[in-house]
């Protein structure tokens, strides 16, 4: 390249750099000396500030995440508790209604434990002699008969459940008016005894207490007839009763006065 061309090239480069710079700044605020000198520092400063801010944000997000997880767990526990309270409230409302309509109510009690005796099916309730409870009193829920008071202490009582084979209650079939005795079998199906073969018993018929045993008041729902077997029996029909109140789901109960009691 000739010297003349090189000179021209240098001149052009000079002009283009200067004019580009000036055109770029046209209509803008002039750059101060300190701005130019501090530009690299500003860039570095902005970068580190951005980096620190990002770290801070990440840390904040992490902390927030942890906190929210804890809060969520807490809320879930609380929701569970509220659900439990709602359910309990519902049950207690039903119990209250029953208490209002049942004149024989002595006390409403809460099941606090399963019975310790291996030979008997019992539950322990949180009311005892102090609440006016006596041995042999009927224990019911809103669904139906549960059992009877077996032992009484000052502040709690044992309830013998219908499921126990030592338990018996005089009953009547609601439609056919047949009478009999329901006894526990140790299982979730009870036996309706002493119904003669000629008695017409149909599956699904409701079984209620008859009050003839002098222990349980009349008309307490016990269960429904599950299976009826007439063939191959000698004196009485073999009838199984499915209880209204399962012994596995008893939580709140009502204790009733004995039939004929004051």
């Amino acid at each position: 390249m000739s010297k003349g061309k090189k000179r021209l090239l240098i001149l052009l480069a000079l002009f283009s750099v200067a004019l580009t710079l000036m055109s770029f700044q046209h209509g803008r605020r002039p750059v101060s000396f300190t701005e130019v000198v501090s530009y690299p520092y500003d860039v570095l400063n902005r970068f580190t500030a951005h980096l620190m801010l990002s770290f801070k944000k990440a840390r904040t997000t992490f902390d927030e995440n942890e906190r929210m997880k804890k809060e969520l767990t807490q809320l879930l526990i609380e929701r569970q508790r509220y659900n439990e309270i709602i359910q309990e409230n519902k049950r207690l409302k039903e119990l209250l209604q029953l208490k209002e309509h049942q004149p024989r109510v002595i006390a409403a009690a809460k099941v606090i434990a399963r019975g310790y005796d291996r030979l008997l099916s019992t539950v322990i309730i949180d009311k005892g002699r102090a609440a006016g409870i006596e041995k042999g009193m009927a224990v019911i829920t809103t669904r139906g008969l549960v059992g009877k008071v077996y032992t009484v202490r000052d502040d709690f009582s044992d309830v013998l459940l219908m499921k126990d084979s030592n338990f018996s209650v005089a009953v009547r079939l609601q439609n056919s008016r047949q009478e009999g005795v329901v006894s526990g079998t140790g299982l979730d199906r009870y036996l309706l005894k002493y119904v003669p073969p000629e008695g017409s018993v149909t599956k699904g018929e409701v079984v209620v207490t008859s009050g003839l045993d002098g222990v349980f008041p009349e008309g307490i729902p016990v269960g429904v007839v599950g299976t009826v077997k007439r063939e191959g029996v000698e004196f009485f029909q073999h009838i199984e009763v499915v209880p209204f109140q399962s012994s596995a789901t008893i939580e709140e109960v009502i204790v009733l006065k004995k039939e004929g009691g004051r």
Partner: protein
Amino acid sequence: MKMLKWMLLVALIFLIQTQFSSLKNFFNGAVILVYLFGLKSRQDISLHGYFSSKTEIKSTLFGAFLGLAEDILSGSIIGPGLLSKGLLGLIAPVIFTDMVFRWTPLWGGIVMALFTLIDGGIIIGSRVLFTGIEISGFTAFQVMVVQAVMSIPFGIIVKPQTA
């Protein structure tokens, strides 16, 4: 070492111009320095026996750097000083050759004055054009002429070795 010497000279010129602001209207140290650098480069090359475009590039870059520094310190737009001083840096090494002018004290003075006028013209023109500031033409011309007249002695005194 040479570079350091020139850097110190640049710093000194700026120091004088910024500390003694009243001098600003009478004295354009930056143009004188560019002129000196250009002549010195020409001399160095003449001593070594050849002249390449590297000299012009070096001189142009020196002028541009000086102009850029002046622009930054001025607080106005960046570019006018870079353009004017760069241009003077490009011209300075080649102005006193057999092809253009043979140096005489009169020509040295005239070139120095012309350089100062060119520098002033480019700077004022660019600022008017790109920043839109209003400058009184007469005042600007006055300043430029005074600076040019004040530069003439340097043009007369500083003699290229090749002359």
